[in-house]
């Protein structure tokens, strides 16, 4: 944008903020420098109209609330103005420690688009007189990252518009097409999910944002549905990934100085002549077995038998699967 265009747009904003009456395009052209043209010359007039349309679009994109209306019932031409109350950032009386927190929050984004939005938002707060201490820290700062589907899904949830997207779960071969009325987006344990009403399953569902393939399609009109009142989004995600009760106790024999990972997990360690006996809390024998197999010959399960059997079974299958492979690879 040239300097003249920037100048024209600043003047346009000032002009429309200062007027109570709606001003028509012709009135604006006669007032704001940069719109001078001959309205009787068709080509000149058309050029003006194009210029004015571009400028309006630019202002709207910036978030300037351009109102359209007519000054009186006798006017047929639409007019424009900017309501000061809609334009101006309301007063946000931030204490210094609060302002520091906002300043820190604004630099947490690792996502380029939202990082830019956060810093331009912060610039507005500063313009409103808020002083931000750039040196402030809170001792521990989260890196805020989001998946590409974050922006379209939060916008759709805000506007209550139905969306469609392709969703890939690793144990399926191809993505499936899903249709959703999104209620909101949740960050749970560092991962992002969208929660909403699944239109095909006719039930509440959550989807992991990292599994959305390609673009999110906004398919519905705004305000097309109403999320249930007081819905607790987190609870829908946390329900199936909540904490596990480890009530089982297994005893294993660990080679001296080995299996450091298991030792940290043990509730009891007893040194013995043939190794250290570790008592391990567990919930599910199969997943404990998986874990123990990782330590190979360094760990031997003594009890309970179901874990011991599960480990032996897995070891047998792994050994036989790798028997041919290792030989083939070694002979190459």
């Amino acid at each position, binding site marked *: 944008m040239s300097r003249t265009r920037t100048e024209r747009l*600043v003047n346009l904003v000032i002009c429309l903020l200062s007027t109570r009456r709606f001003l028509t395009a012709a009135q604006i052209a006669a007032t704001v420098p940069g719109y001078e043209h001959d309205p009787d010359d068709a080509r000149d007039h058309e050029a003006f109209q194009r210029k004015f349309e571009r400028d309006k679009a630019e202002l709207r994109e910036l978030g300037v609330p351009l109102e359209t209306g007519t000054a009186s019932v006798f006017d047929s031409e639409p007019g424009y103005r900017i309501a000061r109350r809609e334009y101006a950032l309301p007063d946000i009386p931030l204490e210094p420690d609060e302002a520091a927190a906002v300043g820190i929050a604004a630099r947490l984004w690792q996502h380029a688009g*939202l990082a830019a939005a956060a810093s331009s938002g912060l610039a507005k707060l500063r313009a*409103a007189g808020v002083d931000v201490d750039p040196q402030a820290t809170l001792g521990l700062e989260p890196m805020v990252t989001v998946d590409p589907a974050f922006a379209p899904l939060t916008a759709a949830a805000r506007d209550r518009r139905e969306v469609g997207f392709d969703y890939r779960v*690793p144990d399926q071969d191809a993505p499936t097409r899903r249709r959703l009325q999104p209620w909101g987006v949740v960050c749970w344990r560092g991962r992002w999910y969208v929660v909403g009403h699944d239109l095909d399953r006719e039930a509440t569902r959550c989807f992991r944002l990292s599994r959305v393939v390609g673009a999110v399609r906004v398919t519905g009109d705004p305000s097309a549905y109403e999320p249930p009142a007081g819905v607790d989004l987190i609870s829908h995600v946390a329900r199936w990934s909540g904490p596990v009760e480890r009530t089982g106790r297994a005893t294993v024999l660990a080679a001296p100085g080995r299996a450091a990972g298991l030792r940290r997990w043990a509730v009891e360690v*007893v040194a013995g002549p043939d190794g250290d006996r570790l008592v391990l809390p567990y919930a599910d024998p199969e997943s404990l077995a998986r874990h123990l197999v990782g330590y190979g010959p360094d760990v031997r399960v003594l009890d309970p038998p179901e874990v011991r059997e599960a480990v032996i079974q897995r070891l047998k299958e792994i050994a036989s699967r790798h028997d041919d492979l290792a030989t083939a690879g070694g002979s190459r």
Partner: protein
Amino acid sequence: MTRPTAKGGSRTSADRLARLLNLVPYLLARPGIEIAEAAGDLAVTERQLREDLELLWVCGLPGYGPGDLIDMAFDGDRVTITYDAGIDRPLRLTPDEALALVVALRMLAETPGVANREAVERALAKIENAAGDLVGAPVEVRLPADVGRVEALRGAVEGGRALRITYYTAARDETTERVIDPLRMLMVSGRAYVEAWCRRAEAVRLFRADRIDAVTELDESAVVPPQARPHDLSDGAFRPSPDLPLITLRVGRGERWITEYYPCEEVRAGDADHWLVSLRVTDLGWARRFVLGLGPDVTVVAPAELAEQVRDAASAALDAYAQPAPDARRAPAPTAADPALAAGSR
């Protein structure tokens, strides 16, 4: 040639308009501010700021006479707005700006161990209030973690001393003692880390808070060597470097989840239900434990060395099971073990 070139041009122009509309209220709130200070604050050069002021100087209310134009007084290197022509307030937040600030603040408020959480929550409430409907933001954040441990670590890091830590390294399945000079604490993908100069590795390392089993503050200040640089964490805490060993696995349907949990170099469809997954590992010993733990639905394609290690480890373990088992309950009195550790591991 005043028009910026195509790419990024319209973005910079929109940026400039936004900056100009912000500049008047910014200066209005800070009469007599030094131009250099304002430029630093607004992240523009002093020259750019002066150009912005010149442009604003010829803008104003219709009429555009001396009393209508934006006016300012210069006193040496200082500037004061004396007439604002009605743009005395910044533009309200856009939905994206409100969302970006609110979500980041919620992240901060939810981060365990954050100092002055109460200030974060007050700030969040005020921003939400000002943004109004823009952030009926349907975004919620929960980052559960071991708050007590993280807070203790933060206290130790803020103490400014070198720390002796007992640290579990999963890559080598070993617990070691080392002295570190902390740089900062951060949270990546829901996990807390201490970033520090490690005197043992003589490099900057990230230490996962849940793997720090003990901390002692030493009687010396933390000294971070000048060559130490914080990690670039934009791609997560673990970014495999190309000089690490590459392994390729044939992965059955039930174990395909690994492609979501570990950064993979390549994932291809193989025969039947299998995927061929290539990933870089810090250590082949780790890869052996990893593959063994995944179980029979995963086989090593390459390197052959890893396939042999997996086979040998499985055979050796089976040989041990073929021997008569020692009695599980023949146990003398237990030695000390910290039950609190059990909660921290997976």
